[in-house]
């Protein structure tokens, strides 16, 4: 937080200004993937990045996470106020460590009581001593979520966290996650091609379009004014205008 002319100005939790990101697949020439992509995420805000498959959403996430620094531009987290956490498309758990050892490895910021409540909230209390190989994919994803929340993140990145889960499991997990996110006020950036996911979890949607992908529309979701189905329909209309399907 800083003051400008007597007013309290909140620094954004995330400031993305990517001029260009190129990528060369093995044996192929350089391809511009992202171009002139600029947006900010305010503390406590939950933002979804939606775009067609292969448009560069995961690339964008890797740039924000600092996993790839080969791009023109800047990504900063001036007002994030805490550690970065990420839930990957794969659970990325260490198979030789138990669930609680996987959590312990990332040095949780929460105390034992808060961790215990998180275990309960995510339905993992009975699985603490199990190895990831003993868990279903749904449970493994819960562990990945648990690990992210355990560090009490200043910014949470979710890269299609429910991909390859069956519909029933994805719906249930999404509802649980929505509850935890709403209660915790965690600044969140979600990458997805699933509009239901974006509408249920977020209050703002960034639509990516084109090749190279750029920010086509920044949509504030009017949760109070419209039903989820209405918000979804509105997003579909906007996407159709942009000329692509998710």
């Amino acid at each position, binding site marked *: 937080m800083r003051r400008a002319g007597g007013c309290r100005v909140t620094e954004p939790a995330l400031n993305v200004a990517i001029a260009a990101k190129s990528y060369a697949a093995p044996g192929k020439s350089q391809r511009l993937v992202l171009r002139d992509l600029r947006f900010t995420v305010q503390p406590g805000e939950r933002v979804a990045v939606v775009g067609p498959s292969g448009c560069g959403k995961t690339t964008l996430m890797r740039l924000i*996470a*600092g996993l790839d620094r080969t791009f023109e531009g800047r990504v900063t987290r001036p007002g994030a106020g805490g550690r970065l*956490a*990420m839930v*990957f498309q794969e659970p990325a758990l*260490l198979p*030789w460590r138990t669930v609680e050892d996987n959590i312990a*490895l990332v040095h949780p910021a929460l105390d034992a009581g808060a961790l215990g409540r998180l275990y309960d909230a995510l339905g993992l209390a009975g699985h603490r001593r199990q*190895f990831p*190989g003993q868990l279903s994919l749904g449970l493994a994803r819960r562990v990945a979520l648990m690990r992210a929340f355990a560090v009490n993140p200043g910014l949470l990145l979710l890269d299609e966290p429910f991909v390859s889960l069956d519909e029933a499991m994805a719906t249930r997990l999404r509802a649980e996650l929505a509850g935890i996110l709403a209660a915790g006020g965690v600044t969140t950036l979600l990458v997805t091609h699933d509009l239901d996911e974006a509408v249920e979890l977020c209050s703002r949607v960034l639509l990516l379009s084109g090749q190279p992908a750029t920010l086509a529309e920044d949509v504030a979701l009017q949760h109070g004014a419209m039903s989820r189905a209405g918000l979804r329909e509105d997003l579909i209309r906007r996407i159709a205008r942009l000329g692509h399907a998710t």
Partner: protein
Amino acid sequence: MLRLGSLAALVAIWAIGAHFAGPQMLPSPLVVGRLMLHDTLTGELPRQMLITLFRVAVAFSIAMVLGSALGIAMGRHAAFDRVADPWVVVLLNLPALVIIVLAYIWAGLTETAAISAVALNKLPNAAVTLREGARALDRSLDDMAAVFDLSPWERQRHVVLPQLAPYFAAATRSGLSLVWKIVLVVELLGRPNGIGFELGTAFQLFDVARILAYGLAFVAVMLVIESFIVRPFEAHAARWRVPRD
């Protein structure tokens, strides 16, 4: 049980063969057993065994440490792999005897030459095995370690090394069997003691009973190492590979 039966059958065939070949060509298991017991009680066999085992341990450790470091670096960095690969290929295909003889010519009939020659023979083997391990490392776990800001030590200790454990075990298993065989050749050619030296002396005296007694004693020791060190290590490294509920 089947293994024990198979081993008993081998001893029986040996006894029958000894009966027909005569004691000079092939002494019976009983004669060889007696000699083994005698030399054990006098302390000669254990003494020679310890000398050889010391050489095996030192050469094996050097080869594993350097070979693993080389292999991991090659597996992680493609450019370094392209530079180092021809060297590894040369070493892999250079006959063990050539390395041993050259080491003795260049460094004299010394302990250093002997151990270096053995280590150099095993090193490319470990490097190639660990290179495959490093190439197979899961990148998503690397990403996880980076995002959650694990220290370099934590990444190596908890993320990288456990993934390499099966490759270490494979390199250890193949390495031990390779190293002890080469150590015997090294001792035969240029050392004044050790099991290899004893075998060389027995060869000159056409003492087949001694050759078998020392050879088999060494096999027994290596089996003990395999059973009580290598296999438990493998089991420990793979303890998380549990069946699903």
